């Protein structure tokens, strides 16, 4: 199929009916929380749009994000998404290897300079001049910097690319940073999560395809449509929080009754993601529904915010020694103050006598 075909044309050539495409659009519009009427507009725009070139780069990552992406919706719809895009470089899925693969990337970049969509997963190590991650002799920083120059927009997939994630976690030996720390002059969309909800990844791509722009972002660069509300606010267990009904352990009556997991360390109240509505595995469930609190994986530094099982309202500090020292010092100074005061008393008493 030709790259110059419009999306509508290429689908038609594959024998996909307009009604089927409409169904895809309805599902995607639903995902993007667009009003129902927008599905038709979306279908119209998408069918006339050019197939965009997508370059997918992977750095310090575990491929969990890629695994997630390939599970979006369903084989059919995911194929559809990939079919409307021209995925020109993706180490995990591409057939080419070695110099051929690198050549493909360079070609795609050259042919679509200024227009391609750059998708990145994994954090970028900047310690020791980027020596911790090199591909074909080039450091991750350099590849990213160069690839970003020709990109229309950058999508950071996963918490590692978005915020540094696990490679950035304490003690961060490689100096891992988020993509947005390297790419400063291009719009960067952070699709965080460890991994992100698959439909959220495709939803952002669909938004870009449909509207030719990136969606509205929150202060952390995440699309508001998916990251606009906390897990807690959209959680079906929220009424139990309000009623003060909490599971105290993972196998008590409360846990079996599906009560709120706040006491078991759920980070839902401060975690912004689409899990409770889009859910996972084709809408089957999400962590809280499966009986485990939210880890807060779509938030920066989630790995370094204390135990996953420690309630949100507790402190994350350590160092009882400081408290002990403070108590001892306070007592000592208090005793000292009393002694000084007693001395002053004794002194004036003596004066009085003489």
């Amino acid at each position: 199929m030709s790259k110059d075909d419009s999306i509508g044309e290429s689908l038609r050539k594959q024998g996909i009916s307009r009604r089927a495409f409409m169904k895809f659009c309805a599902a995607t519009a639903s995902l993007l929380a667009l009003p129902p009427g927008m599905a038709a507009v979306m279908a119209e725009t998408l069918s006339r749009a050019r197939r965009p070139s997508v370059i997918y780069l992977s750095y310090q990552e575990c491929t969990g994000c890629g695994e997630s992406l390939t599970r979006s919706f369903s084989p059919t719809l995911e194929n559809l998404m990939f079919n409307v895009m021209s995925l020109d470089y993706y180490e995990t899925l591409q057939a080419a290897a070695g110099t051929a693969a690198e050549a493909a990337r360079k070609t795609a970049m050259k042919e679509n300079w200024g227009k391609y969509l750059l998708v990145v997963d994994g954090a970028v190590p900047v310690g020791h001049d980027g020596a911790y991650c090199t591909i074909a002799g080039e450091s991750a920083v350099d590849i990213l910097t160069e690839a970003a120059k020709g990109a229309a927009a950058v999508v950071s997939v996963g918490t590692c690319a978005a915020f540094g994630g696990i490679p950035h976690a304490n003690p961060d030996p490689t100096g891992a940073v988020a993509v947005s720390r390297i790419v400063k002059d291009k719009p960067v969309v952070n699709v965080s999560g460890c991994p992100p909800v698959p439909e959220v990844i495709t939803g952002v791509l669909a938004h870009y395809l449909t509207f030719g722009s990136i969606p509205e972002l929150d202060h952390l660069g995440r699309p508001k449509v998916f990251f606009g509300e906390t897990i807690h606010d959209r959680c079906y267990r929220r009424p139990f929080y309000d009623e003060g009904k909490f599971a105290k352990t993972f196998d008590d009556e409360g846990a079996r009754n599906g009560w709120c997991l706040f006491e078991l360390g759920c980070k839902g109240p401060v975690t912004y993601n689409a899990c409770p509505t889009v859910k996972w595995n084709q809408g089957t469930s999400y962590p809280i529904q499966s009986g485990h609190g939210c880890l807060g994986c779509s938030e920066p530094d989630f790995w370094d915010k204390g135990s996953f099982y420690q309630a949100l309202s507790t402190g994350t500090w350590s160092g009882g020694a400081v408290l002990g020292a403070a108590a001892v010092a306070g007592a000592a100074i208090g005793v000292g103050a009393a002694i000084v005061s007693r001395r002053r008393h004794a002194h004036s008493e003596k004066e009085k006598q003489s």
Partner: protein
Amino acid sequence: MSSDINTIHPLETEGARLSIKKPALRYDRQGDMSDGQRVEAAMRTFVREFGATSAIYLESCIHCGMCAEACHYYVQTNDPRYTPVRKLEPFKQAYKREAGPFAFFYRLFNLKPRVTADELQKWQELIYDSCTMCGRCTLICPMGIDIARLVGQARHGMFQAGLVPHELWAVAERAEREGSPLGATPKVFKDRIDWLSDENAVEIPVDRDVADILVTMSSIEIMKYPQAIVATARVLNALGEKWTIRLDGYEATNFGMLSGNSQWQKDLSMKMINAAVRCKAKLLILPECGHAYGAMRWDGANVYGKPLPFEVLHISEFLARNLGNGRLKVRNVPKSVTFHDPCQIARRGGATQAPRQVLGKLGVDLHEMTPSGDGNWCCGGGGGVVTIHRADELRYKVFQIKMKQVDDSGAEMLVMSCSNCRQTFDDGQAHFKWDKTAHSLLELVADNLVQ
């Protein structure tokens, strides 16, 4: 100044209350210290007495203002200056600067400015004229702060600064020098006893070497209500007690305490203690006088530095005991009576029930005031206030509470067991041309003894 006190500040003995005559010129500053020295002396003295107890009190105040609602001065004037705990303000500042746990910082950063002599001068009115140390504020305080006790401590500082109201200083000085604040010198007292003894045909033993009971008197009684001496003698004689009055220790009032001189307080108390020890008394009876009770019953042993070798009873307690055990018998008095609780004996002394037991034995129809007992209102004359002329107007204002209480009780007769309250009532009666006369509980018993 002290040697001229009798001529410069002669006693006013004819009035309804006993004080020195209204001074033409006031000397509310004593001595010739500089302002700086006065402040220094006041703060030093206040802080010197500071122990953990007072520290906890001063640290605890939450400025809730409830103490104002218990204070007759605030209630009658609605003037917030009279809020009891505020009367301690300069002393609280001194504590924070000098003795509190954060004193170092208060001094270092000057968080609480040094108190000035002018401030202290201004506070004289609050510490003396408008506080009888009646302790109603102590009773209301949600933190349980003993404000009355702190005012007592503040007075110690004021005395050392030479900032005591003229009259109070004068009578205290006189008590220290003559043995009695109001002219009841041993010679005057002896003459009175002889005269009373003849007049009333009652035996009054004086200066016995050995006695079971030492009887003490208030100079207000000696000079103004001498029948109290006779009444006491009648009761003790009726009981057949081996008792005595001693000229080396008879004065129970303690103007050293009221004015704020702790050394004089000690001197005055020690006279009685030594007299009692000398005659091997088992019991010391205090007269109908409020602050005398606090000074000897509760402070006596602490002045002495060890437990007293004798028992101390207020005369009302003594009467209650002997009426209760049947040794003393009285006639029925078919009258309705209301009883005024002297603050230092009831609220602050704990002898609240004794007079009621006595009245019970007299068979009177007791109409309690509202409130009564430990919550009763002060007459407004305690703490030495009744001696201060410039405080008269304010004192009459607060006395109106008392008049209303008595009138509302509907009783025919008003009885109390404190001669200082009694002279305050007499003075108030004269001022307002009121129809109620104050009576002594002791005299009521003595008049109705059954031999």
